Structure formats: C-alpha cells, structure tokens
C-alpha cells in the first residue's frame, strides 16, 4: 500500500456518480471519465461499486507487464501511469489482462487510458478528483492513519485473490474487522453464471 492513497469503501457508496463526473475534469484525460461505477446486483440491490486503478504492486502492474510497447510507466511513488501516447499501439493487452477491469481503450485513437490517481493533483499533494467530491467518503484519499483517525476501528485490505494468485495493490479497500486476515476475493474463479455451474 502506498503512503497516501485511495481507500475504497463500497459500503458507503450511494451510486450518485459524482466521482464519474469529477473524473472527467482531470487534466490528464479531460472530458473522459476513468472511474468505473458498477451495480453488481442491479435490479435487486442498490449496491454500487466504484473501481479506480488499484496500482498493483505485486505482481507489479500486470497491465505494464503485458504491454508489448513498454508504454505504461510505473513512477517511483508506485503510481501506474496511463499509456505513453507516443508508444501505445492500441493492442488492448492491458485492457484484457488487468484483473480489476480498469483500463479503457480508444480504438480510433489507438490509445489506452486509465486512472492515474489524478497525477496532476496528487503530485502536488491534492486529493484526486473522485475523492474530493465523494459525498459519503466511499472514496477517501490520505494515509491509513488519517483514515483511522477519522473512522476509528476501520480495517483495510490491500490484497486480492484471483484464482491461485494474490495481487497486492497500492489502493486499498475497507473490509469488516473479521475479514481483514483474508485477501479480498477478486471474483475468480467464477463458479456459477446465471444459475449454471461453470466449474
């Protein structure tokens, strides 16, 4: 986990899309929102689930590892940057390899784009756009100590399982106290789709 990072608490998310709108204002990808807001059980639950880039630390940035053009730079502070416009060939390897489903691609422009933790802001100590506008604190930017000072007893996890692989990330998620010893399940393996066992 990075020092100052985003902490995601889906339990607080009300699905208002303020983060999606604010993300569009980020200077490094003006007009295009990079945050994802999904409704996992739409129609039956109001649960909403925000996803920013998790800035994977171990294995370090699978998106950058699979990139055939060396286009994705991981800066010394652990931030996985969006693709270098000069190098990106628009192959979509990163889009399909990312275990969290984060990068987006513009096929016309042959360019990948993703959340870069609002590098234009965080490099100057400001919070990313999404965390700045989130009305419920579902997206919190700061250190773990700052989060715990504001929300006593809160527990976070920064490792996720995908099958047999555990991915440790720079961005963390809030988890209940009894689940903190677990890596957060990443959704893989999928055992059932539409009521059908797919094991």
């Amino acid at each position: 986990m990075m020092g100052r990072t985003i902490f995601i608490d889906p339990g607080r998310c009300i699905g208002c899309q303020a983060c999606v709108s604010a993300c569009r204002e980020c200077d490094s990808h003006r007009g295009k929102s990079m945050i994802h807001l999904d409704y996992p059980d739409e129609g039956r639950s109001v649960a909403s689930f925000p996803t920013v880039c998790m800035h994977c630390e171990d294995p370090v940035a699978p998106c950058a590892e699979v990139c055939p053009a060396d286009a994705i730079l991981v800066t010394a502070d652990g931030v996985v940057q969006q693709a270098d416009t000069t190098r990106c060939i628009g192959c979509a390897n990163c889009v399909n390899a990312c275990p969290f489903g984060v990068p987006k691609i513009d096929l016309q422009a042959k360019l990948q784009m993703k959340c870069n933790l609002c590098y234009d802001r965080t490099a100057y100590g400001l919070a990313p756009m999404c965390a700045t506008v989130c009305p419920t604190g579902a997206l919190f930017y700061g250190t773990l100590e700052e989060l715990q000072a504001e929300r006593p007893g809160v527990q976070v996890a920064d490792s996720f399982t995908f099958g047999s692989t555990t991915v440790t990330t720079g961005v963390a998620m809030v988890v209940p106290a009894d689940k903190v010893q677990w890596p957060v399940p990443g959704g893989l393996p999928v055992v059932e789709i539409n009521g059908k066992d797919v094991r």
Partner: protein
Amino acid sequence: MHPYRGRVTEPPKTAEPAPAPGPAQGPAPGTPAAESPPRTPAAVRRRATLAGTAVSVLLILAIVFGSRLLRDFDSALLPYAVATVFLAFGVAYRYTVWISAPGARRLFKQGRRSFFSAANFRKAPTALPKMTATYLGFQKFLGARSHARWAAHQLVFWGCLLAAAITFPLTWGWFTFTSSTGSGPGYEMRIWGFKIIEFDALSVLGWLMFHGLDIAAVLVIAGAAYFLWRRMRDRGAVTGQRFAYDLVPLIALVVVSVTGLLLTFSSIFLHGGGYEFLAILHMVSVVFTLIYIPFGKFFHIVQRPAAVGMQLFKYTSRRKDGEALACRRCHEPIDTAPYVENLRGTMRDLDLGFDEWAEYCPRCKRVLRGNAYLDHVKKGF
C-alpha cells in the same frame, strides 16, 4: 436501460476465498508451461550485443562498398557517418531487448506470421499496404487524438523523413553531386556511382535538390514549435512530462533545424561568415540527436511498425474465425480468439496465474468482484 439488464438472471457466484492470506503464488498447477521459456537477462544482453554488432558491421560494409571503396566518401561528413554506425548499434541492441520481452515477442511472432502468410496475402493483398499508409504514413489515429497534433506531427514526420532520405546516403558516400564544368550550373547526381539524373542548378529542380534540407527544416521547426508550445501550455501534456523524455527531443529537433538553416543563411547572406562555427554546432546537435534515438522518445520511430503487425494479426485472425471471442458472462465481444489466446500465453509467460480472466470483459470482471465482495466480504453492502 442498462445494456446488460435482463441478461444475467442470477448474480454469478464466485468461489469462497481461502481464509489464509499468502504471498503471490506462481501459476496454478496444471497451467500449461510457457511455449518458449523466457530468456535470462544475460542471454538477452548477449543476443542484443550480437545483433548490434552485426548491424553496425553491415552498415560499415555498406558504407565502404556503397561509396566505391571510399572514393565517393566525403571525409568532412565523417562524424555523421560514425554517429549513424553508433545509431545502428543502439537501435539493433534496444530492438532486440524490446522484442525479447514476452508481450512484444509473442505479438512480433504473430505479426510476422500474418505478414508472411501466403493465404492472408491472397485473401487481402491490399491490407498491409493500406495499414502501412494509414498507421505509419498518414497516422490517422493521431487525428482521432487531436487534429492539431496530427497536423504538427505530419510536419515533423515528413520533414524528418525528407531530411533522413537526403542526409543518410550523403554521409555514407552513396550520393554524389558532380559538375563536369567545375562550378556548374550543370550537375549530375549519382547513386553508388551510377548516374541517375542530370540537372541545371539554377532550374526549379536544381533549387529543390539543393534546398531539400532547408524545406525539411522549415517543416520540422513548424511542427516541433507547436509541440513545444503545447508542452508549456496544455495542462494534460504538462501532467507527468519529463524534461529528458518529452522536451529534449523537441529541443534537439529545433536546434538541428535552426543550425541547418543558419548554414544556408550564412552562405547566401553572409558570404560564408561564421560557416565553420555553425557547421560544428550543427554537427554536434545532429550527432547528439542520432545517438539519442535508441534511448528516449525517438525510439517510437522503431516501435511504431509494431502497430501494423498487431493490426494485421487481429485483422487476419478475424477473417479466419469470422467472429470475436465473446465474454463468458455477458457474451459481449472481447477480441478475436487467437488474440485472446496470444494474450493468455503472454500472461502465462509472466507468471500471471489469472489468465483465464482474459475471457471475461472488463465490466464483468468488476461486477464479479463486486458480487464476491457482496457475498463474502460485506454481505449486502
């Protein structure tokens, strides 16, 4: 209405996570081993050194024989020729290292397979020339990013191409311009000693021949100046820009072009005043730029053809298969099946043990993770 509503009747269930946290593990047992084992860094360096040396030696031989055993070689241009030999070594070295990485190696092989496939050529003989013209020549994708950037890049691109087409053969002693009457105006141009064209230095053609580099410099200055302005004003471009990576190449292009133009200025308006100093200044800037090519932003010139290989691979595999591989959950198309298989191979090479995840679209990955959180972490959040 949400495009996926109604398709998924039940939230897909994901497996209960193992309660024991553990460090990142290798690929699951039974995961197919990498088809070609990744090479060690030392082996890659050896191959790269070998490739660099081979290409440099070939270039030296081409210079020696192309200049008719140095008879046509202009010794005043020696530093430029030496710089191109270093450039050849650097480019071949970095190219070898680059295509040895799993992602690039696999895509390179697929691109080459598509390129040399006679069946593909028979089915779509125009595909490759069309893609080369669109991606490499006219760079249509840049237009989709910004029209101004496309226009400026075209100026820099054609300017650099024109300059390279003139100067590289000149410094290698491949081109010669000679006059049988001493000072002209009748000149003949020879390549490798063979006469190609005869022209009058005072004609329009003659003017163009002798001012090709000035024209190239004007094109490059216009394009690079726009990019420099953008790097200072555009807040998107300013975010994360690095001096050595983003600004040095532009400054180098401007310095090379301006000092080149000053040489013409000196000979026309100053009767050669300051020419020797300017010639050295120009030479130093060109040599620096040539040697910088393999290290920084300019390496994209060497990398960009990979876009054509990638596109050709996707195009031909789509033609063969008919339709794209659909997401295993929502059935929206992901990409062609051979492309996804290629990516899964890359992931296995890199010990990313979740390669089967590549058969789910990004949205389904997020939704499935949301469901897992909803089911196993914070029930009914």
